[in-house]
């Protein structure tokens, strides 16, 4: 994603914020963006979004070409955007990434309709189940291999994941 497109996206987010739009979906070619603002009046985490998009491999400058599956929902943070940006920069390297050990379908809960194993902001223990990856009717419980706070979920429930794909970011404590 080039700087112009980043700028456009930031402007779009500002526009959505000003107009108090709670959810927004964009599909343009292979690019899919989904924004969801948790609470009215709070800023989305621009810094996280920027880092996220900047981190994606870009085949050509234009048109925008990103694998749709790797763009997760962007959740609003509880802290003001500027503060979050600084915090995000500082904590990035220290975040622990939980990855999928198998190819399969990601499920956030033990069965449809049941509460999720964990939510963003939850404190989890080492060995605690975070999600299930299913393939061929084999359910693989994915555990956190660190104790800390779940700060990010990279995939949607029901979405296919590849071997080694990022599932969660946990801030170790």
């Amino acid at each position, binding site marked *: 994603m080039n700087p112009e497109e980043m700028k456009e996206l930031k402007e779009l987010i500002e526009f959505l914020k000003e107009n108090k739009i709670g959810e927004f979906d964009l599909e343009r070619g292979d690019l899919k963006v989904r924004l969801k603002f948790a609470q009215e009046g709070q800023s989305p985490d621009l810094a996280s979004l920027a880092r996220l998009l900047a981190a994606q491999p870009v085949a050509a400058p234009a048109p925008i070409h990103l694998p749709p599956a790797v763009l997760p929902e962007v959740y609003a943070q509880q802290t003001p955007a500027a503060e979050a940006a600084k915090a995000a920069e500082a904590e990035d390297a220290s975040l622990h990434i939980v990855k999928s050990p198998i190819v399969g379908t990601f499920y956030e809960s033990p069965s449809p309709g049941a509460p999720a194993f964990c939510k963003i902001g939850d404190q989890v223990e080492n060995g605690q189940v975070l999600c299930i990856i*299913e393939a061929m009717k*084999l359910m*693989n*419980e994915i555990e956190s291999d660190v104790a800390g706070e779940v700060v990010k979920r990279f995939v949607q429930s029901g979405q296919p994941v590849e071997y080694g794909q990022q599932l969660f970011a946990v801030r170790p404590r």
Partner: protein
Amino acid sequence: MSTHDGISADAFDLHALNESLARTRFAGKLHHFASIGSTSTHAMAQADEAAPDGDVYFADEQTAGRGRGAHSWSSPAGTGLYFSVLLRPRLSPGDALWFSLAAGLAVHAAVERVTSLRADIRWPNDLLLGKHKFCGILTEMNAEVTRVRHLVIGIGINVRQPEFPEDIRKIATSLRLETGRDWSRQDLLAAVLSQLEAEIAVLTSPSGIEEATTNILKRLEQKSSWIRGKRVFVEGMEGYEGVTEGLDQRGFLRIRTAKGLKTVLSGGVREQS
């Protein structure tokens, strides 16, 4: 209970069962319950308490038998075979998927040996007679990134059910309904465990997993009418329909759709009428 009662007439004889499994990892590791919530839930809990490879938990009745997703497994007392096998194979989590396919083939072979019935296999491992399902298999795994800690294969087989509740009558059957006679759950259990032992031995052979996987793919093609040319609907977030077009090298089902070739990773493949 009188001896004419169906339940006591088909009681398990643990001693005989152990004898017949003498050459397998399962001998002396059979744990029987008159009634239990779910044999797999129990097995997973036992695995956390360091229960050994080869433990088998089976029950006359499950009060909370589970299927995939939100599905339950109807497990009335004394009529079905409900069991879970605990394994600790030295494999990577990715390779453990083969156990799911191998378990279906093991039950297929065991049912044929005991009853002479040739079942169909609906990918990945449902067993059907005609269009009706009589055996479901759900595997659960606990793994580190590079190795399996433990694997629990849960198997439910409808053996002696004379009928089914209204809500599953159209999709379920039992060996009794198909053949008009009752089969011994004990014989079936012994046969499935023997077949499973053979599958495990090949999958965990020191010479590597390739020989086993090639063989599993070949047998599935032979024994299942679902692998090629079947018009199906795939359930999921965005369901789609198409025609099955064989398995890929990992054992995933390929489906030719209007939008190209798709690969099914998890269950929920149903016949499209």
